[in-house]
């Protein structure tokens, strides 16, 4: 018993932070219908501002005021006023992508402002971390742990009193049903919405400041993991119950530490499973809780009153423009191919070949999200599966790298089918969260074994050889990657133009109607998941072969999110969009490399903000601009008098 307690008690502070976040998440999801994926970034923002203030010599109460009482609500309000307010009744995909954009842009924006140096030993909020207050079951309880628990309990008590015994609390709960109905009842729903965002952002800020000193270093990535733990806790409360979310958070924190105590130390299980616990819990909950599944279909009863979303530029553009763009795309591709083989310097050829591999991975997002309306946040994991399968087969069985690349795609497809199984029953948000959890599991556990990704040391994939054809040189490999990309693009185009593509478009438009005309949605989803996973796997294996050595870090779970916002920005509906994404990804990275290191933060900021415009430009803000420019140029040619 003593041993049990000594393992369990250190989990309480973590549990408290999870619980605060979970409560805040449920609060905004219930009342605004937006599942705020950027919540982790909000927590990070407050933790960072607190750190900066305290290190500038401010007393910690002043830092707390600045970071949690002022900055956190301001950030939350800004997000609500400038973004979430406009998309409350938008489709789930739009909400998720927008929130994802913020999740990726905010930490980078902060690092651009405050600098991205290492931040060690984050300060404690209230009681000093070095002094031990008392011992429980042999555990020394220090100031950080004690203050975390006390502050959490006080805040949660206050919040629950408010929601049940005040007018504003009642209105907040009414908002959960329908903001518009609340408005029709003569209540200023905007004001209630503001109150909710202030409260929830305050909780995020508080959680961030409390969590920071529990780690040795202040890192944005810890807060993404915190977010998933909070999501799992929120899911324990079916995303509706605040008390269950709260106790779920506490429970997760404790069980996590218990696992750490009882599992053999030093094994992959203890180093991997412990941090992966929230994700595993989330997956199980999504599959097991029927209430949770129905919850995803919840939408505003008045949402039909909204005007339909604007048609995409592709729909208005007309056939002439479509053909011009397609022809122009092929022409640009041809020029690009010839250039890379002739005058482009070797290091840039390498970069652009990387871009080709990424383009193949991004094709999977075009197929899955653009063409089918499904959201997957684990495409980097599929790429990793492809790469590691290829590496292991080549090194153990000595098979040709070509066969390895194909096998990588095939294994990824099989895993894709397994991941798609929950997708049959779940949709939208649940699928996004399940794939996010799968990606994190793969990253933290699956890829750490010597027989898979081999942890930080990674695995080797040689360049392929085919008889006398040798693809070891940069240019030869470029040709190979180019041909492979064209082949994969042809597959996606064939699917799009065929019956399957039309059925996918129908499913994207309305699953209900698609089923009622005889479309087997389950089969369709499995097929599309498998093909998408295969594409990502092939792209990943190709990338691995290009690099020579790849480790799980090349396919980490955060990259899946970045991939998503990149493709959504450059164009998620077209094959051209995927190639634009691949090229933009590597070229921008390379260009930023020439600039001071701080500037590298521009990358996530640009694409994050690009994703935020998804509600306005579902075809991708870059694609939209491209069409506009082409239209202006063509229009000028057609009607020269209109210009002069």
């Amino acid at each position: 018993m003593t041993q049990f307690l000594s393992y369990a008690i250190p989990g309480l502070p973590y549990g408290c932070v999870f619980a605060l976040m979970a409560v805040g998440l449920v609060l905004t999801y219930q009342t605004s219908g937006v599942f705020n994926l950027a919540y982790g970034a909000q927590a990070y923002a407050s933790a960072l501002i607190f750190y900066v203030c305290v290190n500038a010599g401010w007393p910690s109460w002043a830092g707390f005021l600045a970071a949690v009482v002022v900055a956190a609500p301001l950030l939350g309000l800004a997000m609500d006023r400038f973004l979430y307010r406009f998309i409350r009744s938008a489709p789930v995909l739009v909400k998720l992508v927008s929130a994802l954009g913020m999740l990726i842009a905010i930490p980078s924006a902060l690092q651009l402002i405050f600098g991205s140096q290492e931040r060690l030993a984050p300060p404690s909020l209230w009681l000093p971390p070095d002094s031990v207050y008392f011992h429980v079951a042999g555990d020394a309880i220090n100031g950080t742990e004690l203050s975390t628990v006390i502050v959490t309990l006080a805040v949660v008590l206050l919040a629950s009193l408010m929601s049940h015994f005040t007018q504003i609390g009642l209105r907040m709960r009414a908002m959960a049903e329908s903001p518009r109905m609340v408005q029709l009842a003569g209540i200023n729903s905007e004001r209630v919405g503001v109150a909710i965002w202030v409260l929830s952002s305050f909780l995020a800020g508080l959680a961030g400041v409390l969590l920071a000193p529990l780690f040795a270093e202040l890192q944005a990535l810890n807060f993404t993991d915190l977010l998933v733990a909070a999501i799992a806790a929120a899911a324990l409360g079916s995303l509706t119950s605040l008390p269950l979310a709260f106790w779920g958070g506490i429970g997760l924190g404790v069980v996590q530490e218990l696992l750490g105590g009882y599992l053999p130390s030093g094994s992959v299980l203890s180093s991997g499973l412990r941090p992966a616990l929230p994700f595993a819990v989330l997956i199980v909950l999504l599959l097991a809780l029927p209430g949770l599944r129905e919850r995803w279909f919840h939408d505003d009863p008045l949402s039909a009153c909204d005007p339909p979303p604007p048609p995409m530029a592709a729909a208005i553009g007309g056939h002439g423009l479509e053909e011009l763009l397609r022809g122009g795309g092929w022409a640009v591709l041809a020029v690009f191919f010839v250039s890379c083989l002739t005058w482009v310097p070797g290091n840039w050829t390498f970069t652009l070949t990387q871009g080709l591999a990424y383009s193949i991975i991004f094709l999977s997002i075009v197929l899955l999200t653009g063409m089918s309306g499904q959201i997957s946040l684990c495409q980097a994991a599929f790429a990793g599966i492809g790469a590691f399968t290829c590496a292991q087969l080549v090194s153990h069985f000595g098979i040709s790298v070509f066969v390895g690349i194909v096998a990588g795609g095939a294994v990824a497809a099989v895993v894709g089918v397994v991941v798609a199984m929950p997708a049959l029953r779940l949709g939208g948000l649940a699928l996004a969260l399940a794939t996010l959890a799968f990606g994190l599991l793969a990253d933290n556990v699956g890829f750490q074994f010597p027989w898979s990704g081999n942890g930080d040391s990674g695995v080797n994939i040689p360049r392929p050889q085919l008889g006398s054809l040798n693809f070891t040189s940069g240019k030869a490999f470029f040709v190979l990657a180019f041909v492979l990309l064209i082949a994969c693009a042809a597959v996606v185009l064939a699917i799009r133009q065929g019956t399957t593509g039309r059925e996918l478009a129908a499913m994207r438009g309305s699953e209900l109607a698609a089923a009622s005309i005889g479309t087997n949605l389950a089969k369709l989803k499995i097929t599309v998941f498998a093909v998408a996973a295969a594409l990502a796997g092939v792209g990943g294996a190709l990338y691995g072969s290009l690099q020579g050595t790849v480790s799980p870090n090349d396919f980490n779970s955060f990259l899946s999110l970045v991939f998503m916002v990149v493709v959504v920005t450059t164009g998620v509906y077209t094959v051209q969009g995927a190639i634009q994404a691949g090229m933009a990804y590597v070229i921008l990275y390379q260009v930023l490399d020439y600039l001071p290191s701080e500037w590298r933060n521009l990358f996530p900021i640009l694409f994050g903000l690009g994703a935020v415009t998804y509600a306005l430009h579902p075809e991708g803000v870059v694609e939209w601009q491209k069409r506009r420019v082409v239209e202006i140029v063509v229009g000028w040619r057609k009607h020269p008098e209109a210009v002069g």
Partner: protein
Amino acid sequence: MALVEGTGISKRYGGIVALDDVSVAIDRGEAVGLVGPNGAGKTTLFDCLNGVRHLDAGEICFEGRRIDRLAVYERARLGIGRTFQRLELFGGMSPREHLMVAERVHRADGRLWKDLIGRGRARAPVARVEDLLVELGLDEVADDPIESLSHGHGRLVELGRALVQDPLLLLLDEPSSGLDTREAVGFAAVLLEVRARRQTAMLLVEHDLDFVQRVVERTYVLDFGKMIASGRVDEVLADPVVRRAYLGEVT
């Protein structure tokens, strides 16, 4: 033998009984109405017939075959078409594409390998689709994005999407809602013409009783999940029980 026969259908949502021992039967080519106040269970009955929801009790036979355990798409392939109270259109697709995809699915032409070798691609316009577009008066707007069409056109596209599959039974969920009087009259005329040409059986949920009378011969009346009357429209509407439940009494 009736085309579709539902017997003893019950459906509960938690503690609420949406359908309580409801039986319906529709013959081939027959048009039948389904009226009742909001919340009477009309849409739930539709959902049970086409498989969106599963029954708690009872059974449904279609052409003499039990279908109540089949999925939505399987029932659609047997010949049950449907439109929706709240339009369910495929965003980003034109009316022609709506009909095309339904026609393809109907021919069960959706094999992935066919797409990959380029056999799944539409090369020539499909006569059946083109004819139907003209018949429904959608030929003028056939290539416009669906988002730019009026609500009335949207209803017609839903109807066309169902009809292109040559359904034996068509479930129409409040087709006149959102239409103005002129559009509603036009839609009723289209339905009559469809019946005259194709002998499609129809089950029509509708609040607009003029509309109902124009299209169907007999009607069912649902109230609080119970079937309270059935018979010829004018007779049913004169029934005092129905008047009390649905129309309200003038005292």
